[in-house]
């Protein structure tokens, strides 16, 4: 890639005033670096991935409201986590976290356990129990 061809497309990086470094060759064929504000092929891919996360969050929300899963799963998706990441932060075994996705089990959790989850998401127990607050 030539230095003059380093793409300067609009991207999410721009708003954060963030420019990446690309390696490219100058007029004399020597390697150098050049900043890039973004490149459409990757911006589209990133936006798609973000859309997908949003979909997952919405889906989880619907299932919580239908009492098919506990709010825990919703907050997990909201924080872009998966089971093992959530289990790691909460310091609770994975299989137990999974069990806590069951509304009947979740509703009987001790305030100590609830506090652990609330701390992970930096919210109150109240908010953890009621996702619409």
């Amino acid at each position, binding site marked *: *890639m030539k230095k003059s061809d*380093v793409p300067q497309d609009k991207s*999410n*990086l721009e*708003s*954060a005033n*963030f*420019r*990446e*470094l*690309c*390696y*490219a*060759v100058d007029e004399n*064929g*020597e*390697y150098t*670096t050049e*900043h*890039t504000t973004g*490149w*459409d*092929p*990757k911006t*589209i*891919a*990133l936006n*798609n*991935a*973000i*859309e*997908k996360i949003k979909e997952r969050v919405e889906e989880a929300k619907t299932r919580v409201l239908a009492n098919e899963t506990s709010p825990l799963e919703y907050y997990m998706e909201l924080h*872009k*986590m*998966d089971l*093992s*990441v959530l289990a*790691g*932060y909460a310091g609770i075994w994975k299989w137990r976290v999974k069990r806590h996705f069951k509304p009947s089990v979740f509703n009987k959790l001790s305030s100590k356990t609830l506090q652990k989850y609330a701390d992970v998401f930096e919210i109150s127990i109240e908010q953890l129990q009621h996702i619409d607050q």
Partner: protein
Amino acid sequence: MKIDFTHHQSAHCENGVVSNLMQHNGFEVSEPMVFGIGSGLLYCYIPLLKVDHAPVITYRAMPGFIFNKFAKRVGVKFKREKFRNSEAAKKRLDENLEKNNPVGLQVGVYNLTYFPDEYRFHFNAHNLVVYGKENDTYLISDPVMEEVTTLSSKELDKVRFAKGAFAPKGHMYYPIEFPKELKLEEAIRKGIKQTCRDMLAPVPFVGVNGIKTIAKLIRKWPKKQGTKKANHYLGQIVRMQEEIGTGGGGFRYIYAAFLQEAAKILKKEELSVLSKEMTAIGDLWRDFAVDASRIYRNRSTKVEIDLYDDVATQLEKIADLEKDFFKKLRKAIK
């Protein structure tokens, strides 16, 4: 206190931290040089593992690998420490800063407050340098950022003890022993030899064969998984190839820059010819990304199967070129 530390932005965090720490200690080593000597270039498809609900491909060696290989090959000794609890981790960090010693840290990205939101996901193999502390604020040189930045001690603690795969556990490192002068020649040779060996490895998921495997999968995905999933997968492949840190073209440009520098140090004209060839291959990776993005631009609408075959063919061509390339490279440094 604030240590007199010069921040240089780099494409990739791991090479960048090593290069910055080396320069702080008076050794001029560029980012591509660290990457090349540390045999950073790779292509590896990791079957069974999924990240973001898509297959995982890596264009570089495992986190920490580049760093270790580089240190070993140039004869620099690094001290590494991991911690059980955050108090101990903080104490050791502060002690080093008191001693005017900037240190490298492995951190998780998700809680790096200075990163754009879109880039904050649970990836735990990011690297940065701490070069000072003012009151309760740490001075941070993050190699992928243009300028230096800061984190509060609470924020820093959070990223040092991020959880999930590759959890950093407070991992801290800094060079403690240097050779009298850096002998790069032998290190470069070793670095190149290993990269050739890895890229030409006779296993289906690694190197040139790995690229071919992915090409085959791309042909299958739309039929087997449906276009929606196939497009998501394709998008993830391009992200792994081009996202922050690769310097463009899945590290191929950084590698070409390394070969150009190596040509001068080893006084081997063949290497600068090969550098040009690698640049051209990098351009083909970029073309692949552009064509793939035409497919995943529309997320769920019907896509012609031919289009997937087209990008798969492009990858197969790249695989053939790289096979030829690494054979020539292997010969060139014999």
